[in-house]
């Protein structure tokens, strides 16, 4: 039966060659593999010429790299399992025999390459060391097989996660390059010595440039890695250190056991009983609605988030924000105000515009679309919270990132709490005030589908007083924090920055809660009037 399965694996592999493109890649891979084997074998025979320390380091690092490659190559290349454990599960195999079969069928396939590679040390070592190398070779192959199995499983999972996959490819490439560079650094002096004297002038700087990589710390760390255990055992045997050899072999076996456990875990995961696939259901929930709960708040918030991303009227506000620091700083620079003062202003202005910008007239931005909120009779509080969530989601990171930047530009870290206080007051206070204003004093806004900067074509108030009034109110909320900050900047001693923080956060939170409650109540009471307003404008 094992023979049957091995034949099956072989058949599956050969079938891969029937597709021309795969065949080309596979032939390329076989050539590459053959080249690697030849390189390793000749390298191994040549490494005998090296001095003992360098030889030890080069051989062990190269060996560990190969063992690592047994894991990383399938991880990067494999996108499916030729022989999936689930396929065997169907025939009533026990998990343990599935594990054994899979490991054995690994022999038929690219992993076979591990056999000649594991035999490479035999070209290097003599006598007792060669005997140890013979002993180590099957373990190297086994370790590589298990690592490859784990790599294949992870690789086939990674197919659904392209972003993670990209990172892993990068890490694998970096590890490979780093290992090769370390090996090259160790080989450099010997290789340079082999070259004719005329070349020394050019090679010497290169060799000395690589000197830091030859430091014993790096080499010792790398050679001590568990993956190199079976590669360094013969080397230790050659040095005549029997205790170290036993230690190496023990560590190597332990590594194999750990790998086996990991592999058993992945097998268990693959063989777990599955019910229906929840992924498909989840995929049916579109866009932002997937990330937010299926409640009125979630619906309003998801719709708001979508509009912030998709609607040019909202996007215009976002595009303007990054320009603010440039413009303000430039203006202050022209006037001649020092950077330590002018640097304090952009962040509060950004935060103010973010929290006030579209939110204070958000209901009017919906135009008559607000009927759906009214028809579903969602609570005003839910509507208010849903609308403010995107602003909070943008504003909080802006404040958290902008505050240290502002303090840095200002030149004194001690200002940080004050900046945080003022900005929090402006963000939360702005949201709170806007939540009330948008439910109570809507004014004609650019209609959905119109260009963002187009003035609404309606008679009557343009909302100038609403805009001014709401900004004044927000500034009032932040005024205690601003006042405390100014007092601090004037050089008055005292914990003014902390007062600014407490006053700012306190007032901001208070107004935010007030805005939710009062704005919500107003929305509850005035929703039909808001719709009527939207119909008229």
């Amino acid at each position, binding site marked *: 039966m094992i023979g049957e399965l091995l034949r099956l694996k072989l058949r599956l592999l050969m079938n891969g060659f029937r597709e021309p493109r795969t065949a080309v890649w596979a032939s390329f891979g076989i050539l590459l593999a053959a080249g690697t084997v030849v390189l390793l074998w000749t390298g191994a025979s040549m490494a005998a010429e090296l001095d003992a320390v360098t030889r030890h380091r080069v051989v062990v690092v190269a060996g560990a790299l190969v063992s690592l490659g047994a894991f990383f190559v399938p991880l990067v290349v494999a996108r499916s399992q030729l022989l999936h454990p689930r396929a065997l599960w169907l025939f009533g195999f026990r998990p343990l025999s599935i594990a054994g079969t899979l490991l054995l069928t690994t022999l038929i396939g690219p992993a076979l390459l591990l056999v000649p590679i594991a035999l490479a040390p035999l070209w290097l070592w003599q006598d007792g060391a060669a005997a140890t190398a013979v002993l180590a070779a099957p373990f190297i192959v086994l370790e590589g097989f298990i690592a490859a199995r784990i790599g294949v499983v992870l690789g086939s999972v990674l197919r659904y996660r392209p972003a993670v996959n990209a990172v892993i490819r990068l890490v694998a490439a970096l590890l490979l390059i780093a290992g090769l560079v370390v090996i090259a650094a160790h080989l450099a002096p010997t290789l340079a010595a082999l070259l004719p004297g005329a070349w020394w002038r050019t090679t010497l700087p290169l060799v000395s440039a690589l000197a830091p990589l030859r430091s014993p710390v790096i080499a010792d760390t790398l050679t001590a890695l568990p993956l190199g255990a079976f590669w360094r055992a013969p080397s230790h045997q050659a040095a005549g250190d029997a205790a170290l050899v036993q230690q190496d072999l023990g560590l190597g076996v332990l590594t194999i056991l750990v790998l086996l456990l990991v592999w058993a875990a992945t097998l268990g995961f693959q063989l777990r009983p599955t019910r229906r696939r929840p992924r498909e*259901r989840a995929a049916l929930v579109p866009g932002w609605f997937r990330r937010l709960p299926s409640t009125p708040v979630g619906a309003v918030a998801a719709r708001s988030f979508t509009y912030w991303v998709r609607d040019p009227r909202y996007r215009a506000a976002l595009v303007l924000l990054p320009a603010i620091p440039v413009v303000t700083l430039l203006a202050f620079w022209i006037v001649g105000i020092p950077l330590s003062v002018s640097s304090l202003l952009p962040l509060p202005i950004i935060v103010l515009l973010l929290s006030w910008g579209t939110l204070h007239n958000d209901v009017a931005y*919906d135009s*008559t*679309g607000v009927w759906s909120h009214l*028809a579903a*009779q969602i609570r005003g509080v839910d509507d208010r919270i849903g609308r403010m969530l995107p602003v909070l989601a943008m504003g909080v990171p802006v404040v958290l990132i902008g505050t240290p930047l502002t303090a840095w530009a200002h030149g004194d870290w001690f200002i940080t709490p004050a900046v945080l206080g003022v900005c929090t007051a402006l963000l939360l206070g702005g949201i709170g005030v806007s939540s009330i204003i948008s439910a109570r004093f809507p004014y004609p806004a650019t209609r959905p*589908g119109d260009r963002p900067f187009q003035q609404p074509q309606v008679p009557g108030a343009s909302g100038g007083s609403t805009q001014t009034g709401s900004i004044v109110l927000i500034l009032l909320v932040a005024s205690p924090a601003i006042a405390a900050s100014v007092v601090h900047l004037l050089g008055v001693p005292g914990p003014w920055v902390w007062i600014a923080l407490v006053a700012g956060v306190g007032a901001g939170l208070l107004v935010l809660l007030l805005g939710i409650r009062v704005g919500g109540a107003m929305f509850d009471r005035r929703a039909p009037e808001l*719709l009527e307003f939207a119909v008229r404008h």
Partner: protein
Amino acid sequence: MESDRDAPSAARKGPSGRSTAARPGAARGARTANTRAPEKKVKVAAVDEVETIAEPETPTKVEKAAGSTASTDLVVKPSKAVKQARKAPAQPVTASVSALSVRNLSKRFGGHLAVDSVDLEIPAGTFYGFVGPNGAGKTTTLAMITGLLRPDSGVVRIHGADVWRNPAVAKRSLGVLPDQLRLFDRLTGAEFLHHAGALRGLDRETIARRIDDLVAGFGLRHSLDRFVSDYSAGMVKKIAIAAAMIHSPRLLVLDEPFESVDPVSAASVIAILKKYAEAGGTVLLSSHSMGLIERTCDAVAIIADGRMLAAGPLAEVLDGESLETRFVELAGGATAVEGMEWLQSYAD
């Protein structure tokens, strides 16, 4: 007798008022009764004026009444809500609750009386048509019925719950398609339907399942990933109707649902609505297409100049004539033919 689900407002009115707590059981009871005996008791609105506005009742009487109802085939589960209802001065659940009951509804825009004390009574399970000439007040009436436009006076009750005093309960059993109001059309079709479902507080699985059914029924399957703003006018109507149905309301109020909808889609939508009405749901739709109303509706109301001219079962209103003739007759359109003699003497 009339059941009333306006707990908060009624409780404030005191024992003399008509009140029960809002209870799902009440509606369930009413629904079972209606599905079992879909009575087509529709009178011409003018006649049907003086309905008993329930007298003050003592709690003991209520209990007795509730008991007697339970002894008939109405199943009112003794839930927590019902117990609460018994504590408060309450009214029994009766089978004769209208799906929609409109009393004396008026709306004035400036000096113009757009809707003039309209009355309308629609029993559950009816497919009701609403017709009227342009500017007759159809949309205004429907907007006030659905809680989108505040009336100057009048009462609208949906399965006993006052739309304007107790909107949370009333609107739970109401699905709306307004005319000429925007949709959130920067959402894709799938997002739009999900938005509608989530606003009504449905959970994800339910929404996904219902969207699946709705897009199959309305033929929207291949448009789910496109923005609603890119839809044709007919498709916008269809997805808006689908959104109105997603929370499985008892009453659907659809303003011009078939305007610019192609005949094939209209037929499938009508089939869905018919099935819905057969299962006890109620449909009130306005249309300009007399033929469509005549073919599909059980009952019809005709409005002109803000006044309800006739309302009742199709046979009664039509009186042997076609709806078109009857409509023109009632709405007085024939006069327009006189005058304009200059149109008969040509310019050249």
